[in-house]
């Protein structure tokens, strides 16, 4: 009886090994050495069209549909601390076209440069346009672009 059990066991061991050997063939993955494996990514929509504004006007903007949403995602399930900056963002100038923006984090927390935020899985940062000023002496139709950049620095 005992011999039968041992033979049976050996049979299963061997068949398990064969399955494992077969798995090796398609489970090989390249190992990328010396490459940063940052666990967070940040993405956003590319462009938001605010519409048309007339020279010499000051217009408030309904930012409900006019916001850029930055999505910071952590690929692991760990907590991450990040430091946020928007210092490279462009809002124009008073002698041309100026946009007034408001940044918020995690829905309603006011944004300030260098603020640290701890999050797990994902964090939303929004840039909203509240008003647009168009200087009176612009004398031709033109299109303006205002890049808003969110810089995310992971803190370890």
């Amino acid at each position, binding site marked *: 009886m005992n011999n039968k059990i041992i033979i049976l*066991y050996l049979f299963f061991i061997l068949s398990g090994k064969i399955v494992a050997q077969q798995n090796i063939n398609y489970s090989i993955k390249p190992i990328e050495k010396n490459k940063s494996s940052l666990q967070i990514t940040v993405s956003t929509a590319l462009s938001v069209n605010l519409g048309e*504004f007339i*020279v010499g006007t000051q217009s408030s903007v309904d930012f409900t549909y006019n916001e850029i949403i930055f999505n910071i995602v952590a690929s692991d399930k760990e907590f991450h601390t990040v430091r946020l900056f928007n210092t490279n963002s462009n809002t124009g100038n008073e002698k041309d076209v100026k946009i007034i923006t408001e940044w918020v984090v995690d829905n309603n927390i006011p944004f300030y440069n260098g603020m640290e935020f701890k999050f797990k899985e994902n964090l939303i940062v929004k840039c909203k346009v509240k008003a647009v000023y*168009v200087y009176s*002496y*612009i004398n031709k139709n033109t*299109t303006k672009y205002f*890049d808003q*950049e969110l810089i995310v*620095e992971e803190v370890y």
Partner: protein
Amino acid sequence: MKKLLLTLIAMFVVTSLSFSQNWPANNNGVLITKDVTASNQGILSATGTFKLDVAIPLSIETMVGNVDLGAFVQSTTPYTINSDELKWKITADNRYNFYMRIHQKEQNTTNGNKIEMQWRWDDGTPSSGVIDPTWLNQTLKCSDHDGWCYIFCKVIKVYANVPTTAASGPESFEQKIEVAYLF
């Protein structure tokens, strides 16, 4: 016997599970755990863009730009005529006022012959009518219009009392209109 059987079953289960896991492996079949390379500093950024159009929704188009008044013999008495009209169309955003300046040129500076003109506008409202001569050559604020406005100009008198340098020849009197949201 029962104990041995249970031990063997347990060993079988553990061994089977170990081999059936789909772990990453290198070419030599050596099992490798997750490759973690810690980065000391991670800086990421993303950029979105707000786009807007600045518009000056105001334009002027010459609809009739040339009127031939015909021939006039030199005379000390002015000719009274009712010429065809020059015509311009102004299109504007009716939410905003705009400004207009009519540059009337009634005398040819090279020889002094003259014409006398009458200007009128039509924006489809009952107030359309003759443009007061005192409004010419100065900035006019245009409001209460309906998005479009026609400006007309006709000649009502011709003064052909100064001989041209040649015995006869054409005279031209160029009329100009400027429009802007802000002068």
